């Protein structure tokens, strides 16, 4: 038991890392849900594309630019940009035509999202196959970023500081954008009532597109940081983190931005704690792999007992 307690700070820290990744992905789910009431399951693949871009930047540019910090900046910008633009493209090609037809059935866009997911996975698989003939992509040695320090008994790599730092900056920027800018106000009003937002001079289609761009960019940056931290990705790497982040978004209250962050962090911690302690506490009856089961068990319990999520509230609106 004493060893378990000694492990605790490290486990909590690792949970935090995973939590930030989930939080950044969850924001994409929650923002798109906010404006369209659509669970954009293709968002997993937007994240995956970011992770692949991250790895490709390091592996193709390391020879020319030896400084890993510059590479990191390039990877974050490119990953965010390419993922964001892909999300915009997906919205344009797959979801907008459905809205234009006035499809009322909510299942149609949902199933479309799954279709888009497959298309993106296979597209990346094809491109990577043609380029490197590889399925699993590994991060090149990132030099200085691999170095570590030990603080309060926690082993921390430089790249983990970067993960947390970049996440915090992105979350801060998003909070400012949504809460304080004209675009943020437009996003919030379209989320509540798109046709009345139109009466105010806001073009809801444009705002929806911007929302996909922002959510996609956050997912892409999360992908880059994920690749840096966990080093191996593949065209199918998006599925599990994606669906966990979706769980996190529901956990925090889907459509609720602070909720997505809280949900991500909580889920990251629960999962990491469970992965470490379940096998020990159950005498090996439940192995580490049950951490995933636990994450989805939470989703099911939540949907049963608190469907509005931790921070979500059932909105009363007077008519």
């Amino acid at each position, binding site marked *: 038991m004493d060893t378990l307690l000694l492990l605790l700070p490290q486990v909590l820290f690792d949970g935090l890392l995973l939590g930030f990744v989930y939080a950044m992905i969850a924001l994409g789910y929650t923002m798109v849900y906010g404006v369209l009431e659509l669970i954009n399951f293709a968002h997993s693949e937007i994240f995956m594309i970011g992770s692949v871009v991250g790895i490709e930047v390091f592996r193709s540019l390391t020879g020319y630019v030896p400084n890993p910090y510059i590479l990191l900046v390039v990877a974050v910008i490119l990953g965010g940009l390419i993922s964001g633009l892909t999300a915009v493209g997906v919205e344009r090609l797959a979801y907008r035509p459905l809205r234009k037809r006035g499809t009322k059935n909510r299942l149609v866009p949902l199933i479309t999202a799954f279709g888009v997911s497959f298309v993106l996975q296979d597209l990346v698989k094809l491109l990577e196959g043609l380029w490197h003939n590889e399925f699993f992509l590994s991060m090149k040695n990132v030099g200085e970023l691999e170095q570590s320090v030990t603080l309060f008994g926690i082993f921390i790599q430089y790249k983990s500081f970067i993960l947390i730092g970049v996440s915090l900056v992105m979350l801060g920027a998003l909070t400012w954008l949504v809460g304080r800018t004209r675009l943020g106000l437009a996003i*919030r*009003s379209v989320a*509540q*009532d798109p046709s*009345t937002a139109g*009466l105010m*001079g806001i*073009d809801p289609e444009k705002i929806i597109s911007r929302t996909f761009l922002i959510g996609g960019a956050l997912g892409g940056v999360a992908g880059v940081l994920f690749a840096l931290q966990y080093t191996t990705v593949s065209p199918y790497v998006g599925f599990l983190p994606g669906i966990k982040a979706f769980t996190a978004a529901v956990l925090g209250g889907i459509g609720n931005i602070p909720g997505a962050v809280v949900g991500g962090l909580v889920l990251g911690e629960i999962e990491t704690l469970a992965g470490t302690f379940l096998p020990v506490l159950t005498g090996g009856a439940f192995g580490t792999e049950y951490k995933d089961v636990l994450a989805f068990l939470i989703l099911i319990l939540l949907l049963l007992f608190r469907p509005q999520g931790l921070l979500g509230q059932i909105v009363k609106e007077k008519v």
Partner: protein
Amino acid sequence: MLELNNLNAGYGPIQAVAGLSLKVAQGEIVTLLGSNGAGKSTTLRSISGLLKQKTGSIVFEGKELLKLPPEKIISRGISQVPEGRRIFGRLTVEENLDVGAYLVRDKAVIRERKEKAFELFPRLAERRRQKGGTLSGGEQQMLAIARALMQAPRLLLLDEPSMGLAPLLVEAIFDIIRQLNSGGTTILLVEQNARMALKVAHRGYVLANGRLTMEGPAAELARNPEVQKAYLGG
């Protein structure tokens, strides 16, 4: 200023407005009367662009609006206070006004108009940091009007502004309408409360089943026995 010619509008197979022609001149208050389902709101929604299924022509200050989306129509100088107020319940009062001023780029102008709105509706000033959803029905109506004014429209479309309000508040809302009109805003008013509407309006149109049945100066309509019987309770 505004001219509708042979407007047909509807929802799917339902034609809600048929062959409607009407005019609103600069500086007027014009009211559209009619029972439920007569096509009054449909007419307003057609003008503001919320309703897309329509033919005919809608000309405002010499320019055709028929094919424009709502966000373009408001930029031409027409604001609508929609039926049921439709304020943004999760935004604060002040944010609601900011959304109303979405197309205004000059911060100083926005601030000035907000001050004017708070002067017009002191209740809103007291509640500026409160969420719109927590306001009473009357306050929400004030907010909906104030929000529509943020873009300083030349033509204001009001859809049932007195709906669900206590008599005292109805009076207050109609006072505001008069005040806005004397300040130079042209107003097209849809109302169930025909008595109040005819008191404040210069002219009126009466719709039934999507068609125009009567038109004339408000005072004349108020004296008309048919109007009295159908809309003024005898």
